[in-house]
């Protein structure tokens, strides 16, 4: 956060009007929090909540969002798209694949620039990617200001977890030039998790969460340990081979082949035809996420011939199978990378535009056990729109910190974050499942245990524990002749493997006795782990005074 010092316009905390911005390669969105601390994604003047991250110039006039996206057909040379990941990069390290159909990035000093005709007359100008980002953010800021009726002057912006310090600095600079004080840059998966955890009905719980952010040009998956509402990223994966554009391409190829059958020309060979094909394929893909049937029609697709067709969801899922399977491997890989088993994942949050695809959520549900919550519109009716999660999370964070001095934000983000130890083993009370491991210390947990029925004296044993995956092979169920016919399909010859999570008791840390408990009473045990790993245990019967208290010294 070093780049956050001395914001140019230096608004005092009281004068801040802060919004949350999710700034993506394909789409951006803006969110505000209302008076009751609910985050809301707002629409721009075109009525779009997902605003394409595209900027275009026609006769010196600037267009952004959906209007700029349409210009990819007729005016692609003066249209800049997919530029977020070029920020703070040198030309050699960028992958310009996605910019082929729009203004091409070029080397310019130590950065990337575009040559576009952005004025009514005269020579085309060379505009750096930083300036493009500034212009884009300025438009987002304007849309938010128009909506709220107040001049927006600060923002929390989401970034991928693998953004370098240089990229962060470049983004902060671009935002500052757009008149936005960057309060904080927060990681995209964490923003998505915050958007869910901030809902009034959700409770703070210790859980392992996988956030799958499936976007247009990239997919990012993160495993996050949430302990006492504090998040720690355990592992991340980034993929550029399996994303929304690859699903679009499946549809493009499908319809292009059909078009060739009828007309003999390949619409993919002509720039304008290809641009039309691309736009309509994306629209068809979106329609297939909502309905089971979708139309595809383009006026004058190639050589003046119109083209219209339909496709159903099943067919689409068949032809897109290869890409869809890629998402599965991605999510399985990252859980493994975190050193976890799918059984240890409590929640999977689907975020990003591609997460609307019902089949992806269905596939994920098959990977994880039934106990895992898959938060996607097609599997959970109360799921939040995956496209809005990050902007909402950013807006919530913005409302939390906008009262702070920027110095305070800097100070409490850095030293406080890194100097935290995480327990590798769980600590708990014998006979029940314990506190989860990867807790960040200091931490405090309280549990209630039922005392034995007859009451009396109780021994509380504090132990370390680790979770293990137990694999047991089940013998195939014996079937008699009659039942054989209808159970054929679900009984395989292989013995079925059953995997379950069990707790293994480790080192005993302490014992304490609670005397004379009543019948059917409960014992409350509070375990407090301090920053130096000293442990304090307090045990008392619920409702009773006093109790046992003891401390274990730090190792």
């Amino acid at each position, binding site marked *: 956060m070093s780049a956050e010092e001395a914001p140019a316009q230096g608004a005092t905390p009281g004068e801040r009007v802060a919004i949350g911005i999710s700034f993506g390669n394909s789409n951006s969105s803006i969110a505000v929090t209302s008076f009751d601390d609910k985050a809301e994604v707002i629409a721009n003047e075109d009525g779009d909540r997902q605003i394409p991250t595209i900027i275009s110039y026609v006769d010196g006039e600037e267009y952004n969002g959906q209007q700029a996206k349409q210009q990819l057909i007729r005016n692609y040379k003066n249209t800049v798209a997919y530029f977020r990941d070029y920020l703070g990069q040198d030309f050699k390290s960028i992958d310009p694949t996605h910019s082929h159909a729009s203004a091409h990035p070029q080397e310019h000093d130590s950065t990337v620039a575009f040559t576009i005709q952005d004025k009514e007359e005269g020579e085309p100008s060379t505009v750096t990617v930083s300036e493009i980002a500034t212009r884009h953010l300025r438009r987002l800021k304007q849309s938010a200001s128009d909506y709220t009726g107040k001049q927006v002057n600060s923002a929390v912006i989401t970034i991928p977890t693998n953004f370098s310090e240089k990229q962060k600095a470049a983004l902060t600079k671009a935002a500052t030039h757009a008149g936005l004080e960057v309060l*904080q840059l*927060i*990681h995209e998966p*964490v923003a998505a998790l*915050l958007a869910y*955890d*901030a809902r009034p009905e959700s409770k703070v719980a210790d859980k392992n969460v996988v956030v799958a952010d499936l976007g247009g040009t990239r997919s990012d998956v993160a495993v*996050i340990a949430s302990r006492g*509402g*504090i*998040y*720690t*990223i355990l592992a991340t994966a980034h993929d550029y081979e399996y994303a929304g554009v690859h699903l679009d391409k499946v549809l493009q190829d499908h319809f292009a082949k059909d078009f060739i059958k009828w007309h003999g020309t390949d619409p993919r060979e002509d720039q304008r035809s290809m641009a039309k094909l691309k736009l309509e394929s994306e629209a068809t893909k979106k329609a297939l996420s909502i309905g089971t049937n979708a139309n595809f029609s383009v006026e004058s697709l190639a050589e003046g011939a119109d083209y219209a067709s339909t496709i159903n969801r099943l067919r689409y899922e068949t032809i897109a199978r290869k890409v869809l399977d890629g998402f599965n491997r991605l999510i399985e890989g990252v859980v493994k990378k975190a050193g976890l088993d799918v059984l240890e994942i409590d929640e999977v949050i689907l975020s990003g535009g591609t997460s609307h695809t019902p089949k992806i959520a269905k596939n994920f549900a098959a990977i994880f056990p039934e106990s895992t919550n898959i938060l996607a519109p097609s599997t959970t009716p109360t799921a939040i729109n995956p496209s809005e999660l990050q902007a909402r*999370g950013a807006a919530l*964070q913005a409302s*939390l910190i906008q009262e702070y001095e920027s110095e305070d934000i800097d*100070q*409490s*983000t850095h030293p*406080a*974050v*890194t*100097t*935290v*130890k*995480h*327990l*590798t*083993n769980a*600590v708990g009370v*014998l*006979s029940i499942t314990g506190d989860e491991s990867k807790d*960040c210390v*200091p931490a*405090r947990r309280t549990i209630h245990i039922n005392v*034995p029925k007859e009451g*009396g004296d*109780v*021994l509380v044993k504090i132990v*370390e524990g680790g979770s293990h995956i137990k694999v047991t092979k089940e013998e195939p169920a014996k079937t008699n002749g009659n039942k054989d016919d209808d159970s054929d399909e679900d009984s395989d010859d292989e013995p079925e493997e059953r995997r379950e999570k069990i707790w293994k008791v*480790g*080192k*005993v*840390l*302490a*014992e*304490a*006795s609670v*005397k004379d408990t009543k019948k059917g009473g409960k014992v409350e045990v509070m375990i*407090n*782990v*301090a920053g130096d*790993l000293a*442990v304090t245990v307090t045990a008392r019967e619920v409702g009773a005074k006093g109790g*046992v208290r*003891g401390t*274990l*010294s*730090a*190792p």
Partner: protein
Amino acid sequence: PVLPEGWSGEKDFKAIGSISAATQRTIEPVGPHFLAHARRARHKRTFSEDDRI
């Protein structure tokens, strides 16, 4: 479990070990619970002190 016969400890408490393993990790500076943590860290307060305020 029920207290076994003849178990004793100073003030009914017996310390046996201390926590063995911890790793340094980075937490995400996001959310209300982190901000509460940061407040405690900066003022060097403990949970119970923080509860009282």
